[in-house]
């Protein structure tokens, strides 16, 4: 699922994602007749996840450095945690975009597309891959025009100013609604920071340690009666805990 063709026009993008959708649909579940007890295959529906391969699967190098710079400002390094970049948020977003989420292949994306009322939700025809590709290109264009630099080369204060402008809709980007792009990136960044580390973000369960969320635990019967006290539970990931794999 690598798609590094940076020079695609919006029309080509729409066309290529439509093809992906059709292929995705053909590969969905098979009809089955179930009589008696169905056979059970361990992890049949829950294949082990691998997100630790190096490199970028969706982003170009330039896009990746822009996204890394953005997530490092949305979640800056401070006394409470490492930055969103060091927590793996950009890797998380890259892997999500490379997967089925990137094309919204599960969602209803038939037209006609209309803006609708504020009560009718997200009606954009752009799927996440397009939102990032167009948004990052627009951001590059804006920063070059305004600062003669890429976003990643700006000083942190300048980066914050640009991000605030996108957030408030004060900056317009070519090719995409700036607020839609910002909300998409902010939402995915928070997903990456707080999701289970198996998806590539939240490295070393940094966000869970920060807020005191014990992670993928499934039994609190011993703790439910301990009211109004800090439990200091070591967080666990779906893939376990470093304590489990320590040698000696």
């Amino acid at each position, binding site marked *: 699922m690598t798609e590094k063709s940076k020079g695609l026009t919006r029309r080509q993008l729409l066309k290529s994602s439509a093809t992906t959708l059709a292929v995705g649909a053909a590969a969905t579940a098979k009809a*089955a007749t179930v*009589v008696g007890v169905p056979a059970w295959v361990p992890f049949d529906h*829950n294949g082990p996840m691998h997100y630790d391969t190096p490199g970028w699967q969706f982003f170009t190098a330039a896009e990746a450095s822009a996204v890394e710079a953005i997530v490092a400002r949305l979640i800056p390094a401070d006394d409470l945690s490492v930055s969103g970049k060091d927590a793996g948020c950009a890797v998380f977003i890259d892997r999500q975009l490379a997967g089925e989420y990137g094309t919204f292949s599960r969602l209803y994306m038939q037209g006609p597309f209309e803006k609708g009322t*504020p009560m009718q*939700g997200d009606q954009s025809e752009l799927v996440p891959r397009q939102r990032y590709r167009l948004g990052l290109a627009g951001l590059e264009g804006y920063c070059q025009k305004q600062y003669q630099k890429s976003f990643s080369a700006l000083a942190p204060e300048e980066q914050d100013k640009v991000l605030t402008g996108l957030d408030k809709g004060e900056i317009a980007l070519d090719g995409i609604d700036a607020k839609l792009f910002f909300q998409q990136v902010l939402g995915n960044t928070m997903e990456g920071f707080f999701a289970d580390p198996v998806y590539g973000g939240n490295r070393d369960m940094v966000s869970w340690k920060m*807020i005191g969320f014990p992670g993928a635990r499934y039994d*609190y019967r011993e703790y439910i009666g301990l009211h109004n006290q800090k439990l200091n539970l070591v967080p666990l990931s*779906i893939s376990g805990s470093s304590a489990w794999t320590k040698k000696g």
Partner: protein
Amino acid sequence: MAKKLPSTDVVVVGLGWAGSIIANELADEGLKIIGFERGPWRDTAADFNVASAADELRYNRRQDLMLRTRQNTTTIRNSVTETALPMRSWGSFHPGNGTGGAGNHWAGITFRFQPHEFRLHSYLTERYGKELSPELTLQDWGTDWEEMEPFYTKFDRLAGVSGKAGNIKGVIQEGGNTFEGARSEEYPNPPTEQTYAPVLFAEAAKNLGYKPFPVPSALVSRPYVNSLGVAMGPCTYCGFCTNYGCANYSKASAITTVLPVLIRKPNFTAMTNCEVLRVTMDSSGKRATGIVYMDSNGEEWEQPADLVVISAFIFENVRLMLLSGVGQPYDPVTNTGTTGRNYAYQTANSVRMFFDDKNFNPFIGGGAIGMGIDEFNNDNFDHSGLGFVGGGSTRVTPIGAAPIDSRPLPPGAPAWGSEWKKATVKNYASTMSIGCEASSYATRTNYLSLDPTYKDPHGRPLLRITFDFPENDRKMAAYVTGKVGEIAKSMNPRQMVPSAQTGHWNSSPYQSSHIVGGFIMGADPKNSSVNKYLQVWGVPNLFVVGSSAFPQNPGYNPTGTVAALAFKAADAIRTRYLKRPGEMISV
């Protein structure tokens, strides 16, 4: 052209709560039954494995258990003057998919509707007369509490509902919900344990003179063998509950209570990943002859049957009836037709409280763990002079706090940057919320119909929802949220943030999957679609079962009543219809 298969006794469309219950009951009559399910077969060990079930990204954010909107969604608008647009990802509500349906990812709160609910229009007219707003199209259900109670009890025993009765055979019970109808027996299991937030709320409510009770829970409080002999494990309060499948066999769903028994019966077959396209009718229009479905290779098959039971989620129940030409489509302009009328929802309100000195350990909990009061629900308080009817179930239910979505911040806090992070850390464990899940009353202009523009992958029109909160419900929401605010204030939070549903229905934020109506039950075929046995008026071998039968929605979660109606329909088929097939009620 669909290829015709050999006929069977019964087809059941949808293997969630309603379909699984009915199929199992009818299988005990020796009938040959085929159950159709548009999604996959789901199984706790394989699908909700404890090693990977606690995954917020997959289940909560990416909605892995829910129906893919690509396969089927609804279009939405607030009024007839707007153009409906498709709900492209689920927001306001979460329809399920696969065996177990939405009953896999539900919260597990299992209320019974109160006795007056089943004759709501008559009851409120008697009590308030002309005060009742002409805006509302409230109706009686055509049944009553005495007829419903045995089936609620059957469901309690099936699901192992855990709670404390407030009224057993008319005798009020200390510690239970004293506003409930007289039940024939205590809950099968005692209440679950409680976290700090509901206990704190219950103390505050008690100090103000209210009577708190444990929220009735289909997450079982102890090891339980249900009425069909299926074993369930005790809830472990893992907090991956609402929107997740349960890895512990603790949350009752069709897959943990019925299907393990049903699938072993030789006269039952499940057809999964098979989408039913329509009900076939004979030329008279008075008899269903079976269904047509499409398998995942895109091949169409006709499955003839003597008896057809439609028990999908509300939206698909109503859409299948519209697509199959069963009943006359409702028209809000002429106020004629029944298919699609009296669509209603649930009015969700809350008061959030931020504290400095408390630690709620919010990650511990479950969808139905909590304490509630009922003083402001339905008609439990005098509405004279208030200008509205209805009310809500007030409660604190810590459902878990996986942090992608559960990061409460006070209004005005930044959404990113260092200050955002500080506020997130400060408030994560010290915030709680009191919810008020309130009634939603039907009006002439809220209804379901086929969309003129948007189609599903088979080229069939999507279902169109035209809905906004009625003035009555907005007034009610403001009132009950004010009452909840008084309790919140007595708990001395640093800050409290009330949120009353006083504006338009917004399709984006999750509110609840408590959607009702559109193919309602009643005593008169002029204003209802099914009789009190869930049998379609004028088509006696067709039954449509689900929350689609509710004429309006009280301030309670619907699942217990959906299941009770399923048992009621199955009982009527077993004890009446099979002996004398035909209309069980003639008018």
